[in-house]
């Protein structure tokens, strides 16, 4: 491997951008395929498949063996609301190997006692998100029901290319939310990105079941096929 290729691979990983190193195992010829170039690559389909699984692997094409070194950024979930549902989400996210961050400016809610072993920021979402950053490997979940807290987070999420946006609330609550976002200048195509009612439709009742439905929807969005077979 050329040192320049290795350095570029490391730089892309540090910047949290998906990258795949393609190696012709027989000849040793390599190319680095960055996020924006994947669709145009001759191995586009295989690249897409491996990237969705975040797994390196060997593929056969044109009578050759190619090894794909897949670097997919570690998925993160940013949640506004230090509430019951996020209490249940924290240990589940850990099992799923998702980095969870909970943001809630209400210090009575955001206590280490209620949220052991999870990154907790007692800040306003827009401030927290400015620090955390939202990218294509980040999911944003709004759980407070309080527009003062949820809306700034949702607006930041809609301006980013985060892979999942979900907001808790009834259809009525969501209707009012859409009106506010529309007044803030977001179009229908923007607000259609918000999963609401939030979570997979599994008839969830308890906070833990709702947490499961939300995380199921996040995993499905992360791993599910982005291109439907013809």
């Amino acid at each position: 491997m050329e040192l320049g290729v290795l350095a570029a691979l490391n730089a892309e990983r540090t910047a949290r951008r998906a990258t795949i190193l393609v190696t012709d195992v027989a000849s040793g010829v390599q190319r680095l395929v960055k996020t924006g170039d994947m669709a145009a690559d001759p191995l586009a389909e295989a690249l897409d498949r491996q990237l969705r699984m975040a797994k390196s692997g060997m593929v056969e094409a044109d009578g050759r063996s190619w090894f794909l070194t897949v670097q997919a950024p570690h998925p993160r979930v940013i949640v506004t609301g230090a509430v019951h549902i996020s209490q249940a989400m924290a240990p589940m996210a850990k099992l799923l190997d998702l980095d969870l961050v909970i943001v809630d400016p209400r210090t009575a809610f955001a206590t280490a006692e209620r949220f052991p072993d999870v990154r907790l920021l007692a800040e306003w979402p827009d401030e927290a998100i400015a620090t955390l950053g939202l990218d294509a490997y980040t999911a944003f979940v709004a759980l407070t029901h309080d527009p003062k807290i949820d809306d700034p987070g949702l607006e930041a999420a809609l301006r980013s290319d985060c892979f999942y946006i979900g907001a808790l609330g009834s259809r009525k609550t969501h209707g009012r939310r859409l009106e506010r976002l529309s007044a803030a200048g977001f179009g229908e195509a923007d607000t259609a990105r918000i999963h609401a009612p939030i979570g997979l439709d599994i008839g969830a009742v308890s906070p833990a079941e709702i947490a499961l439905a939300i995380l199921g929807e996040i995993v499905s969005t992360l791993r599910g096929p982005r291109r439907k077979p013809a």
Partner: protein
Amino acid sequence: MISTDSDILSTAETWAKAGRSVALATVVETWGSAPRPVGSHLVIDGEGNFLGSVSGGCVEGAVVEEAAEVIADGRARTLEFGVADETAWKVGLSCGGSIKVYVEKVS
């Protein structure tokens, strides 16, 4: 884990930039039960120092030896280890699986 293998790629870059001869070994295929998943890395320098793991200790010695050849002639190669392999008696995988390891020079 991914983070560990990422650290190894960073180490490979650091070592190479410091002027050390460096080879990178990567698990490219596994069959049966293998101790380290596809994509696992081992970085080796010209002095035989290494970091990372391609098999949890079973075949690292052989990979490090082969890496010296790769560093010397610059040619990448693929090594196979497993119970069906004759060398298995010496450096085989006790778990019964087999693996392919791609070894290349960083230059």
